[in-house]
């Protein structure tokens, strides 16, 4: 089997890798935004509970949480399909990290702009939607890119719950061909290529939405 043939087989798994990465990243975005918004709008109690939640999800290893969800929940009657299990573990953990990114971004917003909006008569919700949210998202771009690439780098663990992404293909190939070095170098390169592609893609989006004169963090 030539190197090219190996690459072709491995690339079949790339589709799953991308699916897993984007599903978990989307989950993370939703969760992260939800937590950040809840902390903005909620009172002291909600903030305290969410702080604890974030602490827990940042302190638990992703693989352990995956096992809790995929192997543990069936024991209490909940059968979780593999992709959902990934979203509930990697997605939620990344969401917790994202909520912290958002928290920092919100703190960096000029408070005078918020005051100006309120003076104009906007409600808390409207201020959040029109002033805070757009700026928060712009400030959070580096952090979001970071989280996206982190999700990509933890996606291989999906193979432990049976998802046939690149790493699973690689392990099967190694078992049959015993050419460990070539195969793992190959998937290393594939992941690196996906990583660079993601970075370029996100930077393109960033440029498109950039506001002239807005300071770069």
């Amino acid at each position, binding site marked *: 089997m030539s190197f090219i043939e190996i690459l072709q087989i491995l690339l079949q798994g790339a589709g799953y890798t991308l699916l897993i990465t984007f599903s978990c990243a989307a989950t993370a975005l939703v969760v992260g935004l939800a937590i950040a918004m809840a902390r903005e709008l909620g009172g002291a109690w909600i903030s305290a509970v969410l702080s604890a939640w974030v602490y827990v999800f940042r302190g638990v290893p*992703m693989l*352990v949480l995956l096992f809790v969800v995929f*192997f543990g929940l069936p024991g209490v009657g909940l059968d979780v399909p593999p992709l959902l299990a990934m979203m509930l573990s990697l997605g939620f953990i990344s969401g917790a990290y994202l909520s912290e990114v958002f928290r920092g971004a919100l703190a960096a917003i000029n408070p005078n702009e918020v005051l100006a909006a309120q003076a104009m008569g906007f409600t808390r919700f409207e201020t959040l939607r029109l002033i805070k949210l757009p700026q928060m998202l712009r400030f959070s771009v580096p952090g979001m890119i970071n989280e996206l690439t982190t999700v990509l780098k933890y996606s*291989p663990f999906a193979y432990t719950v049976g998802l046939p992404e690149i790493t699973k293909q690689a392990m099967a190939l190694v078992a049959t061909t015993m*050419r*460990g070095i070539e195969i*793992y170098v190959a998937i290393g390169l594939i992941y690196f290529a996906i*990583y660079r592609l993601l970075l370029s893609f996100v930077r393109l989006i960033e440029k498109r939405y950039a506001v002239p004169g807005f300071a770069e963090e």
Partner: protein
Amino acid sequence: MLDAFPFVADVVSYWPQIVRGLRDTILLSVTITATGLIGGIVIFALTLSSKPVVRRLTQSYISLFIGTPLIVFLFLLYYGLPNLGVTLSPFVIAVLGFTFNVSAYNARYLTIAYKELDPAELESARAQGFSRLQVFWLITAPQSLRMSVPALTNQAIQNVKDSSIVFLIQYIEFFAQMQEVASRTFLFFKTYLFTAFVYLLLVSVVVLIARRLERRLAIPGMGVSVGA
């Protein structure tokens, strides 16, 4: 939660191997944090080399290890090295793999901190007669390290959590032991929940140490730019 009691009994009966697992997890975490830090300082020093070739190679190294999954590199070592006739214990492979990866991240954090340094201070040290190596040792490294404490301690926390993946290359540590306990007792949910809780405790210990370190090592008047 009366059914928690059989679980507790099970945990107690498997106690010796659980403790062994904990010990091995802590051993691995501490080791890779140390080697990753030293490696990071070395790589960071290389990014400051006067030779452009060295600088470019080092940047590529950092880029490569930050851009690829840690587990892939571990598998590469674990499944690949035997093909070259090199047999190493899982522990050594784990330490090797983690060191390459972690040192790249640490070097990146140090490089970010380095940008905040005042070049006039470095020039002043040269003007006083210090050699390039001395300037690095006395000014560059201390300032960069102290400014990076939050990022470096974050990495230490990550190391503790990431140590849980080494069972995939047959290093038996805490998580591996708990998987065995789970499969023997069939109490998957409780066992893994307990596992998560223990990791949370370990991480919390590191967090406490990290906070104290941050307070002691912060440079007066210098904002911390690299953080969680």
